[in-house]
């Protein structure tokens, strides 16, 4: 019995050691949205990255489903947009996954919105305004400068969590920054024709993109944030489009096109479906492809 129990002790201790320390050899990353999964892969190419949602899923409305709890249970780092985008599901995942490592931004939780200045912060929030967030618009991955700031902060977080591999993270960041800045230069040379263009769009999903490109969203298919397009509201947008200065109607890959098509048929405006994130169409296979695709689709309308 004595020998047996010693074996048992050794076995349990080894198991505990492998559970507790084994995962640290390589970061296990849980990304709330595919854009942050893509960014994590750029900054830590050798890690295991899991994307909780796809570009076809509205990140506001995600089920705290069992598979996500299981993935978060094993994560060393959770990378999310923040600014309350995931408020309807992330807290439940944190509670259910019982993983203290990804519960607080002091440890392995990373909110992109905390590292940049968000647009449209509100001093006063009331539900009669729709499903709005005081912390500002969370769809910040469509601003290349802000995304670069986020990349730097995320890389620093990876280094803090896994200092043994600091050199790897730092060189990956340097490589990404260099390629990203070159891409920004290329994009900026392409997007001049979009400057000052006006669009009607669904939600404020592309707030940062339009801000960066100098475009203006003059109408929202949603009567209030989070509420689906209503016929009365669409009719008022039809009136707005009648002024003749609107270039297109924009929807994101996870949004229902019916309202946009209804409006498009009545106004003769093209409806453009832009990938909301990596994987939103065939061209958007990484962050570079995502930007390329969005810009080409917008330029295509303008042509």
């Amino acid at each position: 019995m004595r020998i047996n129990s010693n074996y048992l002790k050794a076995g349990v201790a080894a198991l505990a050691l492998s559970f507790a320390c084994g995962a640290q050899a390589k970061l296990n990353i849980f990304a709330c949205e595919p854009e942050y999964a893509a960014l994590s892969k750029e900054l830590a190419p050798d890690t295991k990255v899991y994307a909780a949602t796809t570009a076809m899923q509205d990140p506001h409305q995600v089920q705290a489903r069992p598979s996500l709890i299981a993935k978060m249970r094993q994560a060393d780092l959770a990378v999310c947009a923040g600014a309350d985008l995931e408020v309807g599901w992330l807290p439940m995942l944190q509670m259910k996954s019982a993983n203290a490592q990804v519960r607080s931004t002091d440890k392995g939780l990373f909110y992109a919105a905390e590292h940049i200045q968000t647009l449209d912060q509100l001093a006063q929030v009331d539900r009669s305004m729709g499903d709005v967030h005081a912390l500002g618009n969370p769809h910040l991955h469509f601003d290349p400068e802000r995304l670069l700031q986020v990349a730097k902060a995320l890389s620093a977080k990876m280094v803090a969590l896994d200092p043994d591999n600091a050199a790897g993270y730092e060189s990956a960041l340097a490589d990404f920054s260099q390629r990203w800045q070159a891409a920004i230069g290329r994009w900026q040379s392409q997007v001049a024709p979009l400057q000052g263009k006006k669009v009607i769009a669904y939600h404020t999903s592309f707030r940062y993109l339009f801000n960066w490109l100098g475009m203006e969203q003059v109408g929202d298919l949603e009567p209030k944030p989070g509420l689906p397009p209503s016929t009365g509201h669409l009719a008022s947008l039809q009136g707005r489009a009648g002024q003749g200065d609107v270039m297109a109607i924009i929807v994101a890959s996870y949004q229902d096109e019916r309202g946009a098509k209804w409006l498009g048929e009545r106004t003769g405006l093209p409806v453009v479906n832009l990938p909301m994130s990596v994987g939103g169409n065939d061209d958007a296979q990484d962050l570079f492809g995502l930007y390329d695709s969005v810009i080409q689709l917008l330029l295509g309308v303008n042509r």
Partner: protein
Amino acid sequence: MMNFNARLSAVALACAFLPNLSFAADPTLTNPAISAVLDGYYQNAERPMAERVEGFGLGHTELALSANIDDMFYGKLTSVIEVHDGETEVGLEEAFIQTLGMPYGFSMRGGRFLSDVGYLNNQHVHTDAFSDRPAAYRAFLGSHYFDDGVRLDYVAPTDLYWTMGIEAFKGDSMRAEDEHGEREFKNVGVYTAYTKLGGDIGVSSSWMLGLSYLRNENGRLTAHEEHEEAVVAEEEHDHDHSHGARYTGENTYIADFVYKWAPQGNYKYQHLTLSGEYFRVSDYAPLEEHDHDLVDDHDTSKPDAHTGWYLSSVYQFSPNWSAGVRYGQVDTHLLHDEHFDAQKLKETEVSLAWHHSHFSTVRLQYTNQQGTNFDGITDDNVITLQYVMTLGAHGAHQF
């Protein structure tokens, strides 16, 4: 054993510091999340064992407060305000603390909370797609079983979701009928054990299966006393809306499943939820002297368990509208003198709900009841018009 424990915790400690997380905890004050649920209704009749009465009424009017207490504990307080016979009562449905920092996927909860047995039980009633819980819940768990106790839960570090837990509760609301107040009940009356498995099928579907066992030390009926047969039937007519279980037994087994589907996994516009549970409540018959009589009386197939089940399907076909159908039944046995009478309740229900936003729901529900010896119910039709609205902090929903 002491030595072994010391060694293991030294390993745990060493590993905890390995990833070099020596940031000072930022003492940011989290504002508590405050939320209220308003629930009002009108219905033309009453469902047996349910909390809602005939006519106008208020359902679960809830006021909840929750926050991380510090980096180790989370706390939640949910009070429920109910009006019964003109009197306003404040009840505590939840008042618990939960650990946030235990290692290896363990967590503990203590205080008053909803038991994690079954699928629906740990969900708040305002998130339900029907105005009352299925008959099986009303019969065996008092609609929803919350109690004072402790829970230990473990989530396995696997890609397939796998959790398991044990709970111990006071069990007052799960006690068997004790008309004469002569019985000495155990102070810790209920123990549970549960496990749940879950995962995804492709990108569009998700599932979860659960198995639960509930041991109720006070669940067996007391040996026959005079006039006992009238107890349940009479109480039914002016029943006190206590949250107590109506039919109890020493051993309850629950199997549950839920399957959800949304096109490409996008829950914004359409999604489908299929769920079902099966209950088996056994060992309810009084022991000893009456055993003999029970076997050889006119109810020849002596029942060995109360059973109940339901199957529910809810489809949200647009962000503004959802519809559901549910069928459920319970087969229970009521002690009459020296034998048990079988009784049955079947409910077929349809509901249609309009959601102006994520926070407001107006629901119309129709229930067709068919009872066989069930508390005097034969057939009945119940129509309920109900609103459920939440204000304040919007808590995340469970799967």
